[in-house]
Structures are given as structure tokens and as C-alpha cells.
């Protein structure tokens, strides 16, 4: 993995430069010879991560995209996992994905953290080779935020608006007007970064932390995660679950689909017309779906309130799964909920009026 602490590949000298933006974008263009490059672009009324054919396509001043880059280009929403042929017996074939080197430019801190979370899921006790091969061949260039949107609450969970984590990605940029502060965070980054810029001097870091301070003041949404594990445990029957589910939730699963750390998938077999060739693929699945927890003779989350509660508690509690809180505070589930359900408000309601 590129410079990831997970592989212990940390034996390089951190170095930081001040680089004019146009020079930085020229550098990105030179990388296109060897890498596919993805980044934020403007599409009519919204922004999205897309493959770019020139650094001039990039729209670095973007606001949160609907889908996070990690769940598009590293963990794919839909992907073949096996192929079968049935002749006299069964033959089983693996799908081999070629190594394609790629770079994702301009990833906000919350989305970097979401990739670090997915690493725990797919590179943990069981390694997913498809995720692994893409993760190892993807350079992550992060971009500290310059604005805080209505639904951002990353500052409450420590994932933004500036990136604090020191490994697991390659470069982090901070916008300083005409220039970027470019901090190299992996061996690979220091190998490919061939532009000569001014070395960053201590005052720059003062400037950086001043900017961060100012940004921290502009958060409108927050969540107090202290003691949430225990609070949820005592409030599994709090009226907020039932009221929100009954009055607002459509079980549409938008929240899960746009969540950058929701990892659940379904496995589906598709058979050819001659019944001899079978494609087995996985695709994103959602705990909001009625069938998600159904078993023979019952359904563990038959009630809509149970499913909504599952989404909220999984995001805000369950730190024992991977030692990390799942939410990265990007606010997408709030933005894209058609009925404007807000998990931070649900939590506040429980904190204000707990059952016990």
C-alpha cells in the first residue's frame, strides 16, 4: 500500500514544499502518462469524481460529491468475483484484474479517512485481492478543506477539516492562495514528486494552523460522541427511532449508498442463456432493505425503526468493530436523504431526553 502504516513502509523523510498551483497541475499532467488520474470535476449543478483527461478539468474548489472516491475507484460498487462453467462438472475461474496505476487528486480529509476505514474491512482478517490490488496501485492526493458546508461535522469526529493522520495516503495539499503547501507522506510520493519548489518554512505551518483555526469556527453541525456507546445501549427503545422511522424514513437506502464507509454487499449469480456460464458478482447492499436481515422463519430487522437504528448506531457506535468510529462526518447521508433525516439531530434528541 502506498506509504501506508499498515505495511510499515514509513522509512522515508517527510518533506514539505510550497508549489505554485499551475506548476502543481503541470506535474499532475505529466503523471497522466503513467497513471489514470481521477479528481473532482464540475458537472452542471454538482461535483463528482471522474477520470480526467487534463488537469484543467479539475475543479479543486469543489463541495462534497455525492459518491466518495474510495467507494468508486478502490472498493467498486459492483464487481465480478468469480466465473463458473458447467460442462460435465463444475469449473471455477477467478477473475484477474490487471494492475492499473491510478491517482486520485483532491480528496477531502473525510474521504481519506473513509478509505482508511475500508482498509480495515477489506485488508483485515480476510484480504480482498481486488481491493488490495487497487489500493496498492492508487496514489491518494488529499486536499485540506477551504470551506465548511451545512452538513459537515468532521471536526466532531477528528477526521477534518484538515488531515491529521500521517500515513495511509501519499500527499496532502493545503490551499494557500496561489500556492499549495505540498506535504509528502509516503515513499512513493517522494519518489515521483520531481518538482523543485520552495521548501516550506516554519511560518507556513503557522499560517496553516491559523487557517485551520478559522475554519474550525465555521462548523454549524456537531455531535458529541462522548459516551455514545453507553447512551445507545440504554436507549435502544427511545421514541426517536420509532418516530423518525414512522414519520420520515422511506427505506430508500440513499443514506447507505452515499455513505463512504458503508461496506455491505450482496452476492448475485447470473446465468447465461445456455445455462453453462455463470457470473458471480457482488454489489452494494443496504441494511435499510427489508430483506437484509431476513432468515428462514423470521426477520431480525423487520421494523423500519430497527433498520434506521442499525444505520445510525453502526455509524456512531460500534467502535469495537475496528477500533474506529465509522462515521467520517462528511454529512452525505443528511444531504441526500429525501426527507432530511439527520443522524446528528437524532443523537441530540437522545442526549437531551434519555430514557434513563
Amino acid at each position: 500500500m502506498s506509504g501506508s502504516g499498515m505495511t510499515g513502509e514509513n522509512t522515508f523523510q517527510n518533506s514539505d514544499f510550497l508549489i505554485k498551483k499551475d506548476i502543481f497541475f503541470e506535474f499532475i499532467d505529466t503523471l497522466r502518462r503513467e497513471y489514470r488520474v481521477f479528481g473532482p470535476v464540475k458537472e452542471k449543478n454538482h461535483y463528482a469524481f471522474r477520470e480526467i483527461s487534463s488537469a484543467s478539468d479539475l475543479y479543486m474548489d469543489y463541495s462534497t460529491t455525492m459518491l466518495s472516491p474510495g467507494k468508486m475507484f478502490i472498493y467498486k460498487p459492483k464487481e465480478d468475483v468469480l466465473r463458473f462453467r458447467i460442462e460435465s462438472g463444475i469449473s471455477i475461474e477467478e477473475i484477474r484484474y490487471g494492475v492499473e496505476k491510478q491517482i486520485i487528486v483532491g480528496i477531502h480529509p473525510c474521504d481519506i479517512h473513509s478509505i482508511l476505514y475500508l482498509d480495515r474491512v477489506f485488508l483485515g482478517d480476510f484480504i480482498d485481492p481486488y481491493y488490495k490490488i487497487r489500493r496498492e496501485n492508487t496514489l491518494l492526493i488529499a486536499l485540506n478543506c477551504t470551506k465548511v458546508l451545512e452538513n459537515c461535522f468532521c471536526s466532531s469526529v477528528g477526521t477534518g477539516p484538515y488531515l491529521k493522520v500521517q500515513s495511509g495516503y501519499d500527499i496532502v495539499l493545503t490551499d494557500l492562495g496561489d500556492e499549495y503547501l505540498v506535504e509528502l507522506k509516503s515513499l512513493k510520493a517522494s519518489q515521483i514528486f520531481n518538482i523543485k519548489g520552495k521548501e516550506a518554512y516554519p511560518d507556513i505551518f503557522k499560517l496553516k494552523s491559523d487557517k485551520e483555526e478559522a475554519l474550525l469556527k465555521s462548523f454549524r453541525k456537531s455531535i458529541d460522541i462522548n459516551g455514545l456507546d453507553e447512551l445507545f445501549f440504554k436507549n435502544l427503545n427511545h421514541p426517536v427511532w420509532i418516530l423518525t422511522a414512522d414519520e420520515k424514513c422511506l427505506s430508500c437506502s440513499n443514506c447507505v449508498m452515499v455513505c463512504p464507509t458503508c461496506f455491505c454487499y450482496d452476492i448475485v449469480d447470473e446465468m447465461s442463456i445456455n445455462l453453462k456460464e455463470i457470473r458471480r458478482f457482488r454489489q452494494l447492499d443496504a441494511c435499510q432493505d427489508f430483506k437484509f436481515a431476513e432468515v428462514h422463519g423470521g426477520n431480525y430487522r423487520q421494523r423500519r425503526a430497527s433498520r434506521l437504528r442499525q444505520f445510525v448506531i453502526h455509524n456512531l457506535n460500534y467502535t469495537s468493530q475496528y477500533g474506529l468510529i465509522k462515521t467520517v462526518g462528511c454529512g452525505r447521508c443528511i444531504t441526500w436523504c429525501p426527507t432530511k433525516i439527520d443522524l446528528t439531530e437524532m443523537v441530540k434528541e437522545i442526549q437531551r431526553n434519555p430514557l434513563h
Partner: protein
Amino acid sequence: MKTPLFPFKAQIIDIKIETADTKTYTLLSKDAAYTAKPGQFNMVGYPGVGEAPISLSSSVTDGIFQHTIKGVGRVTKFLERFKIGDEIHFRGPYGTHWPLDMQSGNDVLIVAGGVGLAPLRPVIHEIVKMRNFFGKVTVIYGSRSPDNIIFMDEIETWRKDIEVFLTVDEIPLNMKWNYDVGMVTKFIDKSTVNPLNAYAFICGPEIMMLFVSKGLFFRGFLPSRVYVSLERRMKCGIAQCGHCQHGSKFVCKDGPVFAYKEITKLPDGLL
């Protein structure tokens, strides 16, 4: 590197009809190195149909093992049409196993409901084989009616080594039945095991496991020594597809066998 979703092939070398909807398949794995512990499960399936989590109902010897499967849905009903010689695919073993302690001569109480006896059968085999290593051992097996009992002829052979209560909820008219009638909970008090020195292993519908556990605690069993095997929907078996999440646990990896106190009072569970 292969995907952990890659299955092995196995050939069906024997089929035994247990009940109208349940069969025991004896399988020969094409992967000779395959082994598993009592309580673990495989993802069993067929191309085009999919996979389902199924416990091993036997130990593994020279790549041969058994699954006892009740036809209830897509995969399990499809398997009903299979014949000796046919191939299926499987991957595993996954999950935790029953903590059978042979060091300390403990008593063991096993309580099973319906097809829930399947994952406990390899434990019973182990106990019978190593009988001197255990104290008193009781099996309480309950089923809805006499024609839902699995492993019927085998259960008789267990009786010479262990105490067995075989019970049904009700006896249909005109059916002969020489054993007990009533819920499994009724027999907890009849078992001769010493609660303070016993492990209890339970598998069956979750509501039944709830009542059995309560009955056991009432009799003096320790929650840390009462184990249950949970059933949840599973697609992957490797803690990624998320379907089996129960509280913060992945039933496929952290379970399916849990100490009762690990999983009590979690959201959406009965225990």
C-alpha cells in the same frame, strides 16, 4: 492471491433422508487439507444458485464430512434434487467452535431444537469418543413432532454413554411415540449434570435459546459457560458483506458460537 470467496468442489458420496424436508449429505472435498472444528460452518452452494451458511454436522476425516440441510429457500431447496455423485461447491470452515474442554473433566449439557442438533452432533461424537474426559453429559433434543426428528436411529446409540431426553411439542393423532412430550425447558431440571461444574451448548430457534438460557441460569449455570450458536443471514462468511452484523459482532467471524454474556441485550436480538 485468490479471493477468499473462491470455493472448493466437493462430491456427494452419500445421501441420507432424515425427514420430509431434511437430508444429510456426505461430501468428499477436493481439497484434501480441509479440516474443521465442531460448531464451524461452510458456505455451501452451486453456480447460478448461490451460497448459504451450513454447519458441519460431522467431523472431517480424510476430506470427508457431512452437512445436514433443511430445504427452506433458494439454495437449500435446490440441493434437494442432488444425487450421489453430483458436485457442489463449498468454502470454509468459518467462525468459532464449541469450546469443548477436555482438560478438566467438566459436565456438559447440550440442548438442541429441530435442525439445531446438526452443529452439535460433532460435539456429541467427540464426547462419546473421549467419554472418560468428561463428567456427566446430558443431551436434550426437542422437535415439533416425531417426524421432524433428525438422526433418529443414531440417537439411540448415544444413550449407552450419555443421558438423552428426546421430546416433541406434540404427537399427531395415530402416531406412535415412546419418548417424552413437552418443551425442552421442562427437562433442564431432570438432567443430572452439576450446573456449577458444567458447560452448556445450545442451538435452535433464538426464542427457544432464550428460554433455555433463562432456565439454565435459574438452575445455577454460569452465563460465561453457556454457549449458543446464532443464525443470521450471510452472503460472504468473511465479515465483509455485513448481513450478519449483530450489535458490533459479525456472527460469521465472532460467532456463530458465542458465550451467552457476549451477545445478551444487543439490538434486534432476542437473547
